[in-house]
């Protein structure tokens, strides 16, 4: 008789508990650096630079409120919201049209265009900064919301097309055919028959494009300006605020930035895989 069969249930339970503890400890270790930033933000300002660092303290919201009231902080957040939401919405709309076409009509060159779109994900951002910088100077789009929205729409299109094409491929074309037979118009088929069935693709594309746009630093820094800087630039400039580094301030902005992200990961966990693999891998996690 083999060992597995003899194995007592209590033994199995012990393995389960060990495994659970290992998983939790690992998760907490990975989160510690972020927890430390949040703790730093909650510490009274004068104790932040204490040696040795304080681990036990009375938390205060003062730093967070101060950071929010500091001249540009709120504006950075608002800017990020404005350009990311408009750009991603636009990108998903045009990408849906394109991926429907790619998926259903398979026009000549589909594979090639999909290839080119994917390759944009792989080029170091710095390589494209110069042409964009000059282009934006010539078109006088620097530090304008229109310029950034146009840029971030393009920035979000490749991922949206890849992810939506994958999802539309998964919807049988029988739906389209039946719709046509019943005399439905093409827009009706696309938006009333196919669109509802790729809802999770749309959610994934939306959530992750927003994150990518929120996190994008280099182009925002080079193509934006004081009126259009977003959160990463805000974080970047926070270290230079007033000569000496104000770590309470940096940690507060960092906390305000990280918390919504953590919430997104909690609520949209099942889309994380498809989001981080650019729509190329789908599956259960």
């Amino acid at each position, binding site marked *: 008789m083999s060992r597995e069969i003899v194995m007592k249930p209590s033994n199995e339970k012990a393995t389960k508990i060990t495994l659970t503890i290992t998983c939790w400890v690992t998760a907490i270790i990975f989160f510690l650096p972020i927890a430390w930033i949040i703790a730093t933000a909650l510490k009274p300002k004068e104790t932040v630079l204490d040696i040795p660092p304080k681990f036990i303290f009375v938390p205060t919201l003062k730093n967070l409120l101060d950071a929010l009231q500091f001249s540009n902080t709120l504006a950075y957040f608002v800017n990020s919201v404005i350009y990311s939401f408009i750009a991603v919405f636009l990108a998903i709309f045009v990408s849906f049209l394109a991926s429907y076409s790619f998926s259903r009509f398979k026009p000549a060159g589909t594979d090639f265009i999909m290839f080119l779109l994917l390759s944009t994900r792989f*080029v170091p951002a710095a390589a494209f900064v*110069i042409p964009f910088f000059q282009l934006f100077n010539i078109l006088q789009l620097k530090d304008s919301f229109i310029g950034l929205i146009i840029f971030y729409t393009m920035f979000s299109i490749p991922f949206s097309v890849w992810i939506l094409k994958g999802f539309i491929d998964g919807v049988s074309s029988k739906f389209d055919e039946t719709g046509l037979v019943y*005399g439905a118009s093409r827009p009706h088929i696309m938006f009333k028959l196919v669109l509802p069935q790729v809802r999770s693709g749309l959610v994934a594309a939306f959530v992750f494009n927003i*994150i990518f746009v929120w996190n994008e630093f280099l182009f925002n820094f080079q193509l934006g300006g004081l009126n259009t800087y977003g959160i990463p630039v805000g974080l970047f400039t926070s*270290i230079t605020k007033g000569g000496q580094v104000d770590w309470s301030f940096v940690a507060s902005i960092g906390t305000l930035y990280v918390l919504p992200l953590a919430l997104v990961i909690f609520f949209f966990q099942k889309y994380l895989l498809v989001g981080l693999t650019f729509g190329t891998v789908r599956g259960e996690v």
Partner: protein
Amino acid sequence: MSVSPRDFEAKIKERPKNVFKTNRGISWLLLTPVLIFFALLNVLPTLWMLGLSFYDYTLTSYKPPSFNGLTNYLDFVKNEQLSASVSRTFLFLFLAVIFQTLLGILIGVFFWKNENMPGRRLALTLFFTPMVVTPIATALFWKLMLDPTFGVVNHFITSLGFERTDFLTNSSLAFPTLIVVDTWMWTPFMALMTLAALGSVPKAELEAASVDRLPIRRQISTIIWPHAKFILMLGILLRSIDAFKTMDLTYIMTNGGPGDTTELIALSLYRFAFKSFKLGYSSAVSVFLLFIAIALTAIYLYVLNARKKAEESA
């Protein structure tokens, strides 16, 4: 409009042979917006960059741009600092991706084996958060923690009896420190890919194997690996590509220093463009990176298609 079942059958029979081939007009119409965006914001900048790379063009000098053929490319090939930073980038990529992959597989297997653990979703949220944080923030956070005087890391090191160290300005420690931070950031990604890879193994086959009491090593080699390898490969490829692009992290944490011990190629490129304003020269470097990116894309798609084929034949 009411259609009786018989009418419906008839209509199905009289429908065009292929509804989708007869609509070339619509297909291109639907593509137009994306193609316009792509032409204006991808093709145009690429051609611009390609053109610039053949010019001697420095913003800070008042000379007008002048055509200089392949000089920029030859300079780039001859530039030892730059080739050093390319090989440093590959070393960084290689080490970081190996650590992340090994650790990621290990942790991924733990979470896979423990599907019903209490609070799994919360634990995974804590675990996954580092990878969605923008590298700018990550870099700042670690700078605070690694600070030689009040940083929390040094607090632990000194309480363990080691000497106070400034990780980011020590020329032999800065590079390994960057790898550690990158590993912290991206191990969750490889664990996520491991979870996905293991999730792609058909449950029925695994159950059959455990009923047959197949030894675990054989289970891995005959059932798990053939299914899981594609997604793992894709994960490693994606990580390699992103590691190759690393810039924000080094920009904030070390700015390439001390000396040029952490100068990775994307940062060099940024500096050529925006510190010394050599637009022609940095465009040549960009074109080089573009070619690497295209090659990597081709490899990535190759693996992706291999997976598709394997799935279809299965």
